[in-house]
């Protein structure tokens, strides 16, 4: 029996101890009218070899194209050691570290994770992960409304990842929280500080500030954070952790920094994996810690006075506080933070800085090559980070489809989310792309643009 160790003799012995004849008797309390008669059409059992073959076929069906899509998920080199260690049974198959003394491995690691994330974002406190970047922002919004009770309205720029805006809406609107859109400049792809004027003095609990924004464009974060503070709103930074190796951390924006910083942890050693599992991180000022959702690990001592680690401030959590908890989150993305911690330890500050630098350099080089192609221009003329929007004189979708068949995923089509931008394609380079890859991209891309243009005249 797959995964069941019982022998016929043992089953007999066990039933005898219980004092029943058959296993079926153990289900006697289930009203028989409810019992499933029909087994449905579940497929028959496969052994590991058979399912292995099926899965290998399916995985290879999905191919390994050259991928220049970013848009919230980034292909980075992941050191082999990261998952070799994170997948060790002791990390992989452990539960939440409720029994602290039997979970010092996970707990110490999380304490190190919190320290790394706090330092990366420049914030005082980090929790031990939320589901993903988008839901972390939703939690940040809820947190902001709990802290700044003056309003249930949140100012959210249109340059924030569209899916994040959708997720936040899904999660917060049932509590009567309203997201108010802050428009952006379609020429430069960011929030023009002057445009804030008309929201000044408004009734908002918080301003969300993405850096870089969805387009890869750098926002004037210092000005935005200052404006929020001046207008009695909390500031919530949404950041890419790789970018933070180069860019000023939210904890320092506009001087004292934001109140809450969050984002998607995927770039820190998570494979793309069709979108998950990734993890959301959430950091805040010390003064907000009791409104923080999610688990937090603290350092303490044991009865000999020896340092040790344990879950702390659990009174914020659902298993203690139930309906008064800061969030309903229970299971989080623990294993992913394990991987992220090992990733950050292997890279170190200099390594992560080089990753960010290389990504950006590669994107600039790609931009140069692509804009040398007729009909391809940069859409925005603003500083950016490792992601850039191109204006094309041919329609984007047919171009992408065609290149996909050539095993090149050439970028993210902005048509659906930002129709006002016209034929706009967002491309992204990471350190995984060699000069030869850029060359190949430019060649295939140039040919495809040409062809498409010709086929239209």
């Amino acid at each position: 029996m797959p995964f069941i160790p019982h022998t016929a003799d043992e089953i007999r012995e066990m039933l005898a101890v219980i004092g029943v004849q058959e296993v079926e008797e153990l289900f006697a309390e289930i009203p028989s009218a409810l019992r499933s008669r029909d087994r449905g059409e579940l497929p028959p059992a496969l052994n590991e070899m058979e399912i292995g073959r099926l899965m290998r076929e399916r995985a290879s069906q999905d191919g390994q194209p050259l991928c220049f899509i970013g848009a919230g998920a980034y292909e980075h080199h992941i050191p082999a050691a990261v998952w070799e260690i994170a997948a060790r049974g002791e990390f992989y198959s452990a539960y939440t570290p409720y029994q602290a003394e039997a979970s010092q491995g996970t707990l110490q690691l999380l304490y190190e994770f919190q320290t790394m994330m706090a330092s990366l974002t420049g914030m005082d406190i980090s929790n031990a992960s939320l589901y993903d970047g988008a839901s972390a922002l939703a939690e940040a919004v809820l947190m902001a409304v709990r802290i700044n009770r003056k309003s249930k309205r949140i100012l959210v720029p249109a340059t924030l990842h569209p899916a994040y805006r959708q997720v936040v809406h899904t999660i917060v609107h049932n509590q009567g929280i309203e997201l108010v859109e802050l428009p952006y400049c379609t020429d430069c792809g960011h929030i023009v500080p002057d445009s804030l004027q008309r929201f000044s003095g408004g009734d908002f609990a918080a301003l969300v500030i993405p850096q870089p924004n969805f387009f890869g464009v750098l926002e004037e974060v210092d000005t935005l954070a200052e404006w929020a503070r001046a207008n009695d709103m909390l500031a919530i930074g949404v950041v890419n952790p790789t970018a933070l190796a180069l860019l000023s951390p939210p904890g320092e924006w506009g001087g004292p920094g934001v109140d809450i910083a969050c984002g998607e942890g995927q770039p820190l050693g998570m494979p793309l994996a069709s979108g998950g599992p990734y993890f959301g991180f959430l950091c805040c000022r010390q003064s907000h810690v009791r409104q923080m959702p999610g688990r937090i690990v603290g350092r303490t001592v044991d009865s000999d006075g020896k340092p040790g680690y344990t879950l702390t401030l659990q009174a914020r959590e659902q298993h203690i506080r139930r309906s008064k908890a800061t969030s309903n989150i229970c299971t989080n993305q623990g294993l992913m933070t394990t991987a992220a911690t090992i990733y950050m330890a292997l890279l170190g500050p200099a390594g992560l800085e080089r990753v960010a630098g290389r990504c950006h350099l590669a994107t600039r080089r790609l931009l140069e090559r692509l804009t040398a192609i007729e009909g391809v221009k940069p859409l925005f003329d603003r500083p950016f980070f490792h992601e850039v929007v191109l204006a094309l004189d041919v329609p984007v979708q047919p171009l992408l489809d065609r290149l996909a068949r050539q095993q090149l995923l050439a970028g993210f089509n902005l048509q659906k989310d930002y129709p006002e931008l016209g034929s706009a394609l967002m491309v992204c380079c990471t350190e995984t792309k060699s000069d030869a890859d850029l060359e190949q991209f430019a060649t295939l891309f140039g040919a495809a643009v040409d062809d498409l243009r010709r086929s239209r005249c």
Partner: protein
Amino acid sequence: MLIFEQSRSGRTNPTQAPRIDEARHAVPQRFRRRQRPLLPEVSEMQAVRHYTRLSQQNYSIDTHFYPLGSCTMKYNPRGCHALAALPGFLGRHPHAPEQTHGQGVLACLFELQEILKQVTGMRGVSLTPMAGAQGEFAGVAMIRAYHRERGDGERRELLVPDAAHGTNPATAIMCGYDVREIPTDSAGDVDIEALRRSVGPRTAGIMLTNPSTLGVFERRIREIADIIHSAGGLLYYDGANLNAILGKVRPGDMGFDVIHLNLHKTFATPHGGGGPGAGPVGVGERLLPFLPVPMVGRKEEGYYWLTEQERPRSIGRLSAHMGNVGILLRAYIYTRMLGAEGMERIAEFATLNANYLMVRLAQSGFEMAFPERLASHEFILTLKREAKQTGANAMDFAKRLLDYGYHAPTIYFPLLVPECFLIEPTETEDKATLDRFAEAMSAVLCEARTSPELLKQAPCTLPVKRLDDVKAVRELDVVWKG
């Protein structure tokens, strides 16, 4: 020793850092970071050694018996991990076009949706919630959307039994509902009279698990369903305990309108020291339009994503992409290795193990919370008497078990049973392990009677002794300051 304490300024790890052959990457000064973050500067070997050694300080399914009630700590097949980690799956960008670069993974997800529909008796399934609690959120949000669409906006109350898991009331609040607690009767069932008194025009629905967190099957479930439905409410099924009934009885057949599953429990995906999991939701007819997106559809040309466009009445998105795909793949592989018979066997052997262990512990003198009931896949004992007689409470018993090489059962949950142990052995443990565990329990009981200080001081064989939780809160130290 912390990794930071092994750090030395200026140490780098060039094997893991990309080459930078040009300094042109600089971003304008005003955007730039001024001071490097406090990440450790260690060699690859130092990192490997540090985290390998840390891992050894954990109890885990791969190393220990872990009878943690409500958590279903069963074996996580290594094959699921290896196959979900095939390069074609790991390398796929979430925005890769599904027609040319996603049919493989979408096929798995589609089939998983179908399988979960089958085993739950529901009409539609969305896989996107990233854990049980997010599944609860999705489920309750669908209940809310349903009432709202019907113009039934006065239903502002969700009923939750007092034995429910903390995520249930917390979720109700997140969805903007008020929570009304329903008491449990002395046999562990919902107090039906109290329930009748609680329903009314404000009732949006009820959140239940069955078997409940008390380890017993709610026998009058159809009656409860009738009460709620007649009052205009809907029934939510918390699927955390599905392991108990897989293939035996389906939530859909019990009358539930919406359900979440914890794939990291029933479907053996690993808990990873806290996550990630996956919490797919299933619904009956009434809630079908509201399922969260994306979902996977099939047409002749192949599989495709169902989004807001195809499903405009959806409650929306819960994650930036498609939830925890890697976990869904693990669960899919597991279901395929089980097949139809394998599913049912899970419930049978999980139940056999729980009842056997319950009887053995009762024979050893432990007091069961519901002695007249059959165990489901788990059961509760109370150490109330022992705590009174010996001074050693459930916490002390739990810590002492660690010294015997067992992870402790769930303690102090559900809150209504004093000094309780919620014990769930799961189907993947063999009889000899249960026997040894029962012996260890007896041994600890004996120690409690003769030398309770052993329990009070426990654990004494682990990397640390009993930790000071109070100090952890009072002198909050959650970030290393060097």
